């Protein structure tokens, strides 16, 4: 793996590398790709961070939950994850499309989709085991109503088939199906991007707007809807892809302007104060009623504009204040995070599994806040350990095999959801 942190993302210094990209540019004037072998460590870093945060958010509330970003603003780790996934997927498969053509790229993408699908089914199996256990052991009359949720166990045939069709998706298992759908459409997105990136982004925004206007959604089994509406969330994914294929570079002037910076800061601070009123209800009366009525509910299913804007503001400030050649990116302190981000599909699945396991332990052992926090910390340590082992396999155990795979490396492609 090359650890040269050359530019991928748009940032003020991007122009310096234009020369290096001239070759690729000549082939495909519409989109630009950076030179082969570069690895944007910031992407790995923040994807790793998103994985940790998603894990913590999936556990019952505990001390560590207060460290996750959803408590300090509108957006949460999911936004980071989907954006970076779009970015890396476009980066890797975009190159495959330029070099090998549409069919080759599509074939590779479909293989990746299959991997994610298998991972999802694997997680579902574990989930099924967990709730079957809960269903047989838990008969508290206080929750006789809530236990009705187990009714689907009476029809395992239907339930399992619906799960395979991605229509039956337990809580906390919504991200992978979203990712599978987004990846399925990646060949189309990349094809359009190759033609006209800005038009593609425009179409994506249009679909997002239509989703809000006409309430488009995907239904789920036994009833309900997809908790992450792919029609809306595709906006982040396509936006990530657009940034990866040269959009970020073209935006660099906007990103480096002071006006943008101040707008972002003001918005983030405002969002912080709004969030504060959720956790300190005593402050609730400060919020003007008019704003409350206009703003709430902040819709996660359809990726509320407030959430999207919050993510954009965070991203803009990050790109500005964390240069890609920041030496800290290579420090050993951030190594665990970066490693997790580099093996995102595996670590994401492990995180979902660990969250189930954590729930189980918390339910069986009545422990206090200390145990809660301990479980979170252990989970993160296990994730880091696993990421380290996987990378050891890739670079030592499977050395011969990995030499050739550097370009189409699936992990680089933003696996995991």
């Amino acid at each position, binding site marked *: 793996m090359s650890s040269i942190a050359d530019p991928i993302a748009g940032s003020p210094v991007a122009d310096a590398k234009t020369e290096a990209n001239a070759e690729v540019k000549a082939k495909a004037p519409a989109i630009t790709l950076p030179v082969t072998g570069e690895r944007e460590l910031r992407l790995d870093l923040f994807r790793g961070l998103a994985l940790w945060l998603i894990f913590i958010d999936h556990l019952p509330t505990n001390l560590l939950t207060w460290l996750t970003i959803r408590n300090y603003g509108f957006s949460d780790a999911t936004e980071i994850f989907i954006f970076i996934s779009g970015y890396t997927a476009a980066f890797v498969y975009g190159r495959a499309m330029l070099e090998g053509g549409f069919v080759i790229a599509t074939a590779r993408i479909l293989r990746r989709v299959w991997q994610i699908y298998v991972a999802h089914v694997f997680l579902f199996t574990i989930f099924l085991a967990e709730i079957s256990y809960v269903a047989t052991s838990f008969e508290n009359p206080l929750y006789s109503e809530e236990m009705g949720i187990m009714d689907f166990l009476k029809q395992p045939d239907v339930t399992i088939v619906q799960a395979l069709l991605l229509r039956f998706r337990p809580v906390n298992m919504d991200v992978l199906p979203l990712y599978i759908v987004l990846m399925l459409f990646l060949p189309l997105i990349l094809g359009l991007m190759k033609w006209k990136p800005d038009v593609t982004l425009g179409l994506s925004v249009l679909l997002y707007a239509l989703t809000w206007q006409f309430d488009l959604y995907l239904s789920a089994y036994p009833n309900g809807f997809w908790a992450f509406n792919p029609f809306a969330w595709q906006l982040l994914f396509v936006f990530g892809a657009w940034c990866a294929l040269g959009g970020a570079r073209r935006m660099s002037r906007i990103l480096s302007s002071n006006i943008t910076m101040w707008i972002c800061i003001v918005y983030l601070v405002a969002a912080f104060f709004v969030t504060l009123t959720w956790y300190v209800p005593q402050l609730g009366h400060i919020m003007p009623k008019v704003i409350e009525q206009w703003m709430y509910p902040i819709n996660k299913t359809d990726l509320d504009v407030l959430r999207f804007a919050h993510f954009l503001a965070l991203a803009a400030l990050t790109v500005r204040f964390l240069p890609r050649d920041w030496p800290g990116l290579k420090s050993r302190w951030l190594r665990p995070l970066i490693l997790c981000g580099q093996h995102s599909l595996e670590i994401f699945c492990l995180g979902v599994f660990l969250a189930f396991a954590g729930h189980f332990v918390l339910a069986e052992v009545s422990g206090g806040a200390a145990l809660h926090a301990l479980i979170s910390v252990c989970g993160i340590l296990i994730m880091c*350990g696993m990421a*380290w082992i996987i990378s050891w396999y890739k670079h030592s155990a499977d050395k011969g095999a990995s030499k050739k795979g550097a370009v189409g490396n699936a992990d680089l492609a933003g696996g995991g959801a």
Partner: protein
Amino acid sequence: MKSARTMLGLLLLAATLAAAPARAGDSPEPAPPAPPCDVPGYLLSSESSLPKVTDVVKANQPLNVLVVGSRSSTIPGNEASAYPATMQAALKEAFPAANIDVSVELQGKSTAEETAGTLVKLVEAKKPTLVIWQTGTVDAMRAVDPDDFRTAINDGVVALRGAGADVVLVNLQYSPRTETMISAPPYLDNIKVVAQQHDVPLFDRFSIMKQWSDAGYFDLFSTAHGVDLAKKVHACLGRALAKFVIDAAHLGPVQQN
């Protein structure tokens, strides 16, 4: 590599320790020596009011309360210990002279939309001064579209007000065991939104029960099969709900200690 992970562990531990006092600072209540039912004041007060309840009680007229809810508004086989009954007892304790009648309408498997359609008839039949509408659980279990859910609550509240009753909304139970199966947050948020829009007092059952669980008053993870826990929780819920109604109707705190 190894030492990096060790250091990471220490770092996280340090962060945890640092977060602990920060979290304690979130709730500035001085925390009096608490009986098991203790609920922070902000969860029991509402900016919204119940004018009809206020008038009826002040005029010494009978107070008719109708609780509309799903199965979490009762304890199977122990209806007399469920929160509507304990609330009635607590209200009577607060207003010994008043004539307080509480009836319960259980619609076990109805979503908010289905219940909303029946509300006007119920009010016409029972003529309650106050309708306590517990909702959200069925919708969350069926993963009803939160927008549809909000519309249903909205329609229901409008219908109830139109039929001449005061309304209190009650949200979902805190149920840690089924947290991985039932997604409560969208429904909690949407009930809150409607309550704010229409100035309806919202009895935040979820937060209150979570508070009790966090404080260790009740072990809500418990797999115990007996009804003991359910009875205790409902006793506390009923008392809290009575306090909440009294506060929202501006009838306290003369009668309250």
